């Protein structure tokens, strides 16, 4: 069930990229998609258990796999820095193309 929700989020994000006209909406759709991917990593990590993996003297319990979580932390940072870069570029583009419609921008800057 959870898997279905996560995959639905990813797909919705992808369709957003595909179908939205506005550039900012496209970027937000990409964020939705990357949120879905992050959730998938967390879900995979939680397969063995959901306890926080902290080393202590306590008896062993079903803890979550720390590796995918560590990996996705890197991906989150990369993802957000890319989004920031894109938004800066969009801000500069918006000065001359206030509507930010992809189709119009593409027509204008075609060689």
């Amino acid at each position, binding site marked *: 069930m959870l898997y279905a929700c996560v995959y639905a989020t*990813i797909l919705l994000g*992808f369709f957003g*990229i*595909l179908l939205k006209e506005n550039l900012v909406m*496209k*970027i937000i759709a*990409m964020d939705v*998609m*990357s949120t879905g*991917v992050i959730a*998938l*990593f967390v879900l*995979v990590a939680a*397969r063995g258990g959901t306890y926080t993996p902290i080393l202590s003297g306590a008896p062993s319990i079903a803890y979550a796999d720390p*590796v*995918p979580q560590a*990996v996705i932390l*890197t*991906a989150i940072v*990369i*993802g957000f*820095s*890319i989004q920031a*870069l*894109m938004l800066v*570029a*969009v801000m*500069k*583009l918006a000065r*001359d*193309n206030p509507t930010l419609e*992809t*189709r119009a*921008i*593409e027509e204008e*800057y*075609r*060689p």
Partner: protein
Amino acid sequence: MTLWTVLWIALPFLVAFSLYLLPQGDRRSRSVIDCRVLALGVTLLSLAFATTLFVQPAPLSLSLLDSFGVSLLADNLSAFFILTNALVMAAVILYCWGTDKAKFFYTQVIILHGSINAVFICADLISLYVALEVIGIAAFLLIAYPSTNRSLWVALRYLFISNTAMLFYLIGAVLVYQTHQSFAFTGLRGASAEAQALIFLGLLAKGGIFVSGLWLPQTHSEAESPVSALLSGVVVKAGVFPLVRFALMVETLDPAVRLFGVAAAVLGVLYALVETDTKRVLACSTLSQVGWVLAIPEAAGFYALAHGLGKAALFLVVGKLPSRNLAVLRQQPIDTAYWVPLALGSLSISGFPFLAGFSAKMLTLKQGLPWQVAVLNGAAVGTAILYAKFVFLPHRPTPKADRWAAQPGLWLALLLLLGALLMANLGYLDAYAPGNVVKALTIIALGCLIHGLVIQRVSLALPRSMERFDHLVGGMSLVLVTLFWITWSWVV
């Protein structure tokens, strides 16, 4: 060797990030820590590293403690790609030496160099992901460097496509981890069909291969010429290299890689044949040449080297021509000093003897499967036709005494690239069998003939709608479905 590898991989990033911390001191201290000198030093270090890789007896493999598959693998194949990276990067830095590029530009070049090196020696999905994303960001900043609206849009489009592709790739990576508890490339062997298809899609889009690579012509032709040289010479190879590694490591993936390689080789040539804009012809030819690299994974290293050097030289020269339109160039003769490197680069990629392109092409064709060789020979004729467009441009010597002194960077860069093309030619002397030479000359003669008889007289234009942003993203989903179907039918 371990220490040397670690130092070499870390140094570019260290240099790039500390560039901003260095003081802007007086003239003498500035000349030592000048950003151009440092950037060139970094590429020389890569050159030295590639040489040590060539002479070392066995592949070097390093893995992280408690690794979960995270590891580095440096062998002969990596050495070829690292050599390409070092030479092309050095040539571009020499080219930009006399121009007023800011420190920021060189910082991005060094970061790009370091992250491409990282791709060429990593052997696990996560290191690869990080390196590819860093390449995406650095390439974005380099394309957007002129900060005109058009360059911003081209860069934004590039980053958008590449980031979407990498999101698919990440899903594939976690699915591989779920099966094997490891991120190593070898984990692809038993992975599910979805995982393989998703990872493939990410790399195909990033490497500009076949339909997923149609973002490439516009991006590579609209960037400034040194940046185009970087993008076509090495950056696309960062997407191709992992696919080659997969094909060599996991035999079930080998047929898919070969198939996509051949398809890309043909598609790129078709696009390039009808183009009339010099930079777009070169960019479409890149689309085809990465297919060649991919089609025969055993010979990929040498082919990538030959193509990287030739294409970088071509982009640097074409940027100096008076016009980008081939029809205009046919009317007004160009300077012979530009024509000579242009013709040499073109002949190398078409596979003319005594240049590295010939050895690479023969090595590739020798190791191909029968069905591949048949199709690739056709693509080779197509390549010869499209480069005949450059070879047959009219030219005449112009008496300009200060031509050499005015832009020493350009000539040094071309000397480096073309010299390396001649030197690399010695790497595979077995190619000079009489049959091979005759074959290469026949292909080129046939190409020139068809060019003269047909191509020059027919003007045809392929619709460019496939290169629109929506279609690129939509094409991604179609390629994904196809890939899933291919891998699924093989797994079953």
